[in-house]
């Protein structure tokens, strides 16, 4: 056996390590260590404004302090309400869009619409929110113009609780429905045409066919879209900052904006870390639960 091939054999044994080493190093240095460090920070009284020697260990005080804050509880409630409402509407809208694009009418000409519909998905959330803020503008905005045409008085979209919440919801629906559409369109393509056609032949209407045949077949995809979207919706930050920045009176403050403000505006690194760890736990529990629940339903039906 030539020496060179023995050498390459020895080098080959190292191949898995060589390939994954950069990834593993990055994950360790930039994810695992900061995560552990964050847990450590959450047990400290650590204020950015105060000198470093004032930093001291406080155990779980940060957690109990943040948990007792009414503002934090309010933010939890609104974040979950927002995620639930947003995801239901997004998945429904996305489904409607996917069905329309998957319909045989107009054939491939509809592909143009697919490219148009995915555009919101590509834009920066902050840019979309700014674009919508032009539409929501109180005096000159086209939305308020239509509102006055309908005989109502102008709405202050960031000054009143319900309109502020609605505006954040609307922007999120605008931005994320196309994502649901893409996944559900891929899902619809997996449904064999013969099955829906056979049902139609048997005299089932399109609505009946959809709910009895199509929907059960793509249930796993729906579970997936819902859990991905819940995960993202619970993280909503950019559009809140751009549209209301928590106003009015903290009514639209989400878990993300709360933690951000605690850590950086009030310069409390310890409480901010505690908040973000609680926040992470909520996301894990909630998205896992929704996924398991939807998956189980898919199995039983």
């Amino acid at each position, binding site marked *: 056996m030539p020496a060179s091939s023995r050498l390459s054999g020895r080098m*080959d044994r190292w191949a898995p390590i060589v390939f994954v080493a950069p990834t593993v190093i990055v994950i360790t240095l930039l994810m695992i260590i900061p995560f552990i460090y*964050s847990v450590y920070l959450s047990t400290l009284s650590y204020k950015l404004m105060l000198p470093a020697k004032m930093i001291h260990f406080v155990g779980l005080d940060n957690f109990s302090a943040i948990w007792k804050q009414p503002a934090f509880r309010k933010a939890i409630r609104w974040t979950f309400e927002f995620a639930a409402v947003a995801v239901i509407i997004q998945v429904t809208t996305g489904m409607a869009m996917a069905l329309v694009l998957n319909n045989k009418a107009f054939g491939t000409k509809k592909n143009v619409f697919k490219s148009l519909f995915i555009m919101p998905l590509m834009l920066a959330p*902050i*840019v*979309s929110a700014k*674009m919508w803020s*032009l539409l929501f503008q109180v005096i000159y905005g086209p939305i308020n113009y239509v509102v006055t045409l309908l005989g109502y008085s102008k709405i202050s979209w960031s000054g009143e609780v319900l309109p502020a919440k609605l505006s954040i919801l609307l922007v999120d629906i605008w931005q994320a429905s196309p994502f649901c559409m893409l996944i559900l369109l891929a899902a619809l393509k997996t449904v064999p045409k013969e099955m829906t056609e056979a049902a139609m032949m048997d005299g089932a209407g399109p609505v009946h066919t959809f709910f009895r045949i199509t929907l059960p077949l793509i249930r796993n995809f729906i579970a997936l879209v819902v859990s991905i979207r819940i995960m993202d919706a619970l*993280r909503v930050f*950019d559009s809140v900052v751009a549209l209301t920045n928590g106003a009015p009176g903290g009514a639209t403050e989400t878990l993300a904006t709360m933690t951000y403000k605690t850590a950086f505006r009030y310069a409390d690194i310890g409480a901010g870390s505690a908040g973000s760890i609680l926040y992470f736990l909520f996301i894990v529990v909630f998205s896992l639960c929704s996924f398991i629940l939807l998956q189980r339903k898919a199995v039983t039906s």
Partner: protein
Amino acid sequence: MKRHVNRLIVAAFLSVFTFFFMFPIYWTLTTSIKPKEAIIKLPPEWFPVHFTLTNYADVFTQNHLLRIFFNSLFVASATTVITVAITALGGYGFSRFRFRGRSFWVYTTIIVRMIPGLLFIIPYYVMFQKVGLLDKLSGLVIVNVTAALPLAIYLFMGFYNEMPSEIFESATMDGCSEYGKFAKVALPLVTPGIVVTSILVFIGAWNEFSLSLILTFSDDKKLLPLAISSLIEVQKDTPLGTIAAAGTIAMIPTVILSLTTQKYIVEGFTAGAVKG
């Protein structure tokens, strides 16, 4: 008859969706080229009559927008190159080899995808402060790579998993080393995957806001999304025209990408979701 009804319904839905999804973009584009008098006008000017570039001129003179545009371009490109280089190798390693600790690392990347960015930003802020990476573009590249890595790894594992194992076996027969197999067999086949991943990572980094909001402060280190969000604070009266112009500028790269590489984007989003 039935066919006509179907066509009618589809057409109706298509128009409603097109209006809803396109109108904000249309409004921003047209507002950006309207003169000031036309922007503050009631009833609103639905179709622009006069065109002007003063909004764009304002954006460029009042803010360091050119500088900011190139900052964004630099951060997004560097993030893309580094992420794709690391994950094209890592995805191959995780997909082709079985070794101890493999599933630990694979599951870690999945869990990391669920972690809200804020959980990382706080320790990053403290660590960056200590090592002098705060308010540096290189610091932003590092955090953006971290943010993009989990999805990119997942996409690449999917791409490599799809490759038939026979091609690797025949390469072994030909006396190819593991490195040779990667370079000569896997890499040419994964090129479309590299395109898909690069586009998604680029768009993600280009659109990123919260990381740069916290980790940079100087005007000349700002990225586009942050610059756009702070336009209102910079100017006295609500600068609708400038916001529209800046928004349009920020839209350009993503719109160009979405029109020219739609096929790859659709694949990336669906593959990332379906496999992730």
